[in-house]
């Protein structure tokens, strides 16, 4: 089986398949030299315990039936020129099964004026990638030293992560695995106030109670309370999860300062309409224009929709972060292998992880499985969920692969060639002929060791290498 993407979805699926099929062999392809995907580049640096799942992944990687193939992009063009990536079709003939677990590499856009043109407007994905050392965003250099007010658009946990990074005392972050360049910029930050803005209300917001509690526990950070009209009168009549969020909000921040140095707030019922330049620099953001919304009745139902009122409000801001979700893309070559893609939802249509050509509503043709192709993680279900949900969902796909294989009722990949598929043994020749430089698990362990050594100098778990060149230089 070929796995595309070395994040938690790929690892947990590989783990499940290897645990249940003694003869399974798994080759895992990763476009970066380093593994773990969003566990390394997405999970906030002050959540080290969430990264403990890496221990399990490392254990999976030590299995002799598992091969890690880093620095080997499949079908992608950016930032690798075509001759430095493998076309998807190069894998097909050498595997029985293909697992798509490459996640969501884009983010949803607002589609409003100023989004792509004004300095100071960032995607949360880029900002998170920047502080976590994702090579793609190492040069983002967000101008925190020029900013006092920041606006985060979106109310998921990524939005709350961004707010927490902007408001946390820098000294609390120094000992995490955050990049040193991010520490430098964060210590120059003048950000005092962060607004986290959502289209709907508290009951419809996507963040979870842990992230809310953390923001309310920050030393020296005040919280502007949510207006009572936006909260239900009796939290006890709600299910446990919502009830606990309301209770945490009611309790308020740990720091009760009359005039706090920094503060944040949750702004509800606001849809962004435009980013507006600041008066003295037409190329830099100075404000966001919002349309005020109201909620469809019943307003305290999680599915209540926002209705625009036509009334607008302009809030000044020096920085804006778009945090309204991620999007998966298809890999060039899907069509050749007959793999469908749902552009609208940004995922690969599947049933329990088995990729299917979806039911055709016009002709009524039923869904047809694509032989041997499976999906896991955000490519499978869309960009939501914590590690636990990714794990369960990966196990579901793993179980599906195992039962398809042992049940012998469905076809696996058939692209001619080998009677018994040779996997990486065959594909490596193609990679070599393209002058690619695959990274093995042992080589990753060297990079890992070098990062930990660098980190020890700063008293932190690791100091990440943030460019592919630096990572590969360790192996010279």
């Amino acid at each position, binding site marked *: *089986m070929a796995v595309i993407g070395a994040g938690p979805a790929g690892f947990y699926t590989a*783990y499940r398949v290897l*645990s*249940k099929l*003694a*003869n*399974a*062999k*798994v080759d895992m392809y990763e476009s970066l030299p380093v593994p773990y995907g969003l566990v390394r580049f997405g999970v906030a640096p002050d*959540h080290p*315990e969430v990264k*403990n*799942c890496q*221990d*399990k992944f490392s*254990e999976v990687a030590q*299995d*002799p*039936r598992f*091969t890690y193939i880093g620095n080997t992009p499949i079908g992608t063009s950016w930032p690798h020129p075509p001759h430095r990536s493998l076309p998807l079709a190069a894998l097909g003939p050498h*595997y*029985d*099964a293909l697992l798509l677990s490459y996640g969501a590499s884009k983010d949803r856009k607002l589609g409003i004026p100023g989004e792509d043109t004004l300095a100071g407007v960032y995607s949360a994905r880029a900002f998170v990638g920047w502080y976590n050392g994702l090579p793609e965003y190492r040069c983002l250099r967000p101008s925190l030293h020029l900013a006092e007010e920041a606006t985060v658009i*979106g109310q*998921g946990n*990524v939005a709350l992560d961004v707010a927490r990074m902007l408001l946390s005392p820098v000294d609390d972050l120094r000992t995490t695995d955050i990049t040193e360049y991010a520490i430098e910029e964060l210590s120059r930050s003048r950000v005092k106030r962060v607004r986290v803005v959502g289209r709907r209300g508290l009951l419809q917001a996507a963040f*979870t*109670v*842990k992230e809310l509690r953390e923001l309310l526990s920050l030393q020296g950070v005040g919280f502007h309370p949510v207006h009572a009209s936006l909260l239900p009168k009796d939290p006890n009549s709600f299910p*446990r999860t919502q009830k*606990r969020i309301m209770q945490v909000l009611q309790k308020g921040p740990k720091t009760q300062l009359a005039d706090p140095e920094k503060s944040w707030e949750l702004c509800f019922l606001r849809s962004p309409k435009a980013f507006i330049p600041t008066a003295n620099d037409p190329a830099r953001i100075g404000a966001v224009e919002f349309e005020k919304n109201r909620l469809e009745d019943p307003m305290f139902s999680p599915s209540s929709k926002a209705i625009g009122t036509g009334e607008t409000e302009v809030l000044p801001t020096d920085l804006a972060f778009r945090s*309204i*979700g*991620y999007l998966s893309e298809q890999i060039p070559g899907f069509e050749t292998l007959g793999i469908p893609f749902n552009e609208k939802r940004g995922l690969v249509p599947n049933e*329990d992880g088995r990729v299917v050509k979806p039911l055709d509503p016009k002709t009524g043709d039923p869904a047809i499985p694509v032989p041997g192709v499976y999906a896991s993680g955000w490519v499978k*279900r869309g*960009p*939501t969920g*914590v*590690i*636990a*949900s990714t*794990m*369960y969902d990966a*196990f*579901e796909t793993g179980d599906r692969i195992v039962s398809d*294989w042992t049940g012998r009722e469905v076809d*696996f990949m058939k692209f001619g060639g080998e009677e*018994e598929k*040779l*996997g990486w*043994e065959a594909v*490596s*020749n193609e990679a*070599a002929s393209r002058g690619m*430089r*695959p*990274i*093995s698990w042992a080589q990753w362990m060297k990079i890992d060791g070098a990062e930990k050594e660098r980190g020890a100098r700063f008293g932190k778990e690791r100091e990440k290498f943030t460019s592919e060149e630096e990572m590969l230089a360790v*192996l010279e």
Partner: protein
Amino acid sequence: MFPRAVITSTTRLLLRQSHSHFLPRRTPAFPSPILPSSLTRPFSTTSLRKHGHTTPPKPGEELYVTFIDKSSNPHKFAVSAGENLLDIAQEHDLDMEGACGGSAACSTCHVIVVDDAMYERIPEPEDDENDMLDLAFGLTETSRLGCQVKMSKEIDGLVVKLPSMTRNLQSSDFSKKG
């Protein structure tokens, strides 16, 4: 990926050899002094094992805990005081994950205490455990995180169920991270 019929290691080696003429290996798969396992691909029947870190109870000091697995089969173990349910389950290869390593930062070791009275005898969950339970699938009134429940005399004879929630998850079951 894997042979459909169980093939002995000898047969497999023969298969390898018979195929090797297709692709003479000119370049090593990984240009490095470290020989990757992929070149040899040894046949192996070892499955991945989980490891708990428990110490066996001293004679006369055994406490008992029963896990009811996803197929409703009970597994009863004699354990020492102070051991937590996640470690015990992993020590005995039960199907329980501890993605965060037992630090109450995920919900993968969710268990359901079968007896209400027994549930009351376990020290109350802290905020961080409750925060994670909020995200657990199939949450019940007597749900706990296995990593946070330590065996003691008070809860000797504890019976917990592993929730079976790996199938047919609705997207609404997921907390959004977006």
